[in-house]
């Protein structure tokens, strides 16, 4: 089985979010970048397929050279090779289109992407990628088993979960549950050394167009001070009469 894991290069979850250039650009100053958490759960599940069932695992990112440390980390975790599509990621459609070209060139059986990236939260790339390549698609995927060309997956739905049967080629939008938090791997020294020798292929973009563009960013208005109360009667009164929430 040939697996491709799509890796988004995103600010660490603890990052403070600021903007520059008149609120038109994300301020990367002092920000630590990581593998998008939803993608990391998928990458770890891909490692399981590789080790237990036999599979090759490639990782791919659409972005500039500054994203390479994130791809190297994925190689250190155990991916076999990495691909970087050498263009700035501008919107979900452009990224999906560039990824579709990589998927078609590499004839992948299984494409694992995160259900959304934690920076722009578009939540559209996995579905677009499935639509563009004609593969089956399962979103918010919390478990995945593959037997030959058949796949069984569980997806999170509002208020529960649903088990589905499908077949390869398949795209999933993954998240926590594909593996547990405790299954995530911290690269060891041997992995980091080996990652330096693994191929990281830079490919030129197909020049996909965007469909959307961000004009500017805005931070939420500062919050008023909390009202502290010292008994539950006051709380119920405030929630009923002031906040009208109960």
């Amino acid at each position, binding site marked *: 089985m040939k697996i491709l894991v799509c890796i988004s290069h995103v*600010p660490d*979850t*603890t990052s403070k*979010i600021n903007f520059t250039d008149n609120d038109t650009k994300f301020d990367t100053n002092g920000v630590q970048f990581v593998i998008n958490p*939803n993608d990391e759960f998928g990458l770890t599940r891909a490692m399981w397929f590789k080790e237990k069932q036999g599979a090759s695992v490639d990782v791919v990112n659409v972005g500039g050279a500054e994203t390479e440390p994130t791809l190297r980390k994925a190689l250190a975790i155990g991916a076999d090779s990495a691909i970087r599509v050498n263009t700035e990621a501008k*919107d979900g*459609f452009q990224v*999906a289109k560039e990824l579709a070209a990589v998927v078609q060139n590499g004839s992948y059986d299984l494409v694992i992407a995160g259900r959304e990236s*934690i*920076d*722009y*939260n*578009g*939540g*559209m*790339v*996995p*579905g*677009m990628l*499935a*639509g563009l390549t004609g593969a*089956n*698609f399962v*979103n*918010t995927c*919390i478990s995945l088993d593959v037997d030959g060309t058949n796949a*069984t997956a569980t*997806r999170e*739905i*509002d*208020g*529960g*979960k*649903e*088990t*589905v049967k*499908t077949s390869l080629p398949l795209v999933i939008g993954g998240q*926590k*549950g594909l593996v547990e938090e405790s299954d995530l791997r911290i690269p060891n020294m041997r992995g980091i050394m080996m990652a330096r020798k693994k191929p990281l292929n830079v490919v030129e973009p197909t020049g996909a167009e965007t*469909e*959307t*563009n*961000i*004009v*500017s*960013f805005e*931070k939420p208005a500062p919050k008023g001070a*909390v*009202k*502290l*109360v*010292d*008994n*539950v*009667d006051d*709380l*119920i009164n405030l*929630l009923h009469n002031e906040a009208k*929430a*109960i």
Partner: protein
Amino acid sequence: MSVLVYTESENGTFKKTAFEVASYAKGIAEMMGTSVTAISINAKDTDSLGTYGVDKVLNVSNEQLNSFNASAFAKAISQAAKAEDAKVVVLSQSADAKYLAGLLSVQLEAGYASNVVALPESTAPFKVKRTAFTNKAFSHTEINTDVKIVGLGKNAYGLKETSGAAAAASFEPSLSDGDYGVQVQSVDRATDKVSIADAEIVVSAGRGLKGPENWDMIEEMAEILGAATACSKPVSDLGWRSHGEHVGQTGKPVASNLYIAIGISGAIQHLAGVNSCKVKVVINNDPEAPFFKAADYGIVGDAFEVVPELNEKLRAFKAANS
């Protein structure tokens, strides 16, 4: 030209978000000087959509679509959009709507903006405000394609009633076997409980509760308030509660009217996930807990003393006010 809205139902009954997206579609249609068409799949009582501004309903009645199927549903919506010459398609941000949005976008060659929080700032260019960085910021985004898809965040617009009536028409999408490449085998959904996605009130607890055996009082509060239960990331990582309850940056986002956080300190990732809640209440014994800075109301106190008393008084309040 029209605005098309996908009004979701479950077992034939419209979800509340269906009326919210219909209200929102009406708002866009007024800005553009056009009408609203809804597409509903195996739903009853489609007349009710007229109350929320829908002028025409396309009813799809098809047994094969009794289970949600993203590929087939996306195809039905895209065919309806083409038949109605829709320039804007409005979706909710339910798990199902998010699932089909990317597929629909490819079929319609339509740019898609998710997590939108208000009516467009302008319709030419078509510019919307949406959340980004998991509710830590907003982006003002333009959609530049001929057809646009807007995913409206839950509780972002509310319900707006009008006095209109919706004309009904049946609609038969043309689907093929290839659209059923993913088949539902079983659904495991707690039918006696409110889901986090649909809840008006969410009661959430963290490690301050010391162990899973202490959740009875949280369940009790949820039952009194008709609320959903949720938890912090450490609680789900420890296995005290299921992953489906984990709220935060890598878990579920919450956009309820009221969020009650008990024994949750308020890590930045958790706060990001609940930023869209309208009213936040914190109960914590640590006055320095960061959550107090993000909350509207707070009680500094021991959850094991405050919560049982609060439950008792909430029960009395509910009895007196219902």
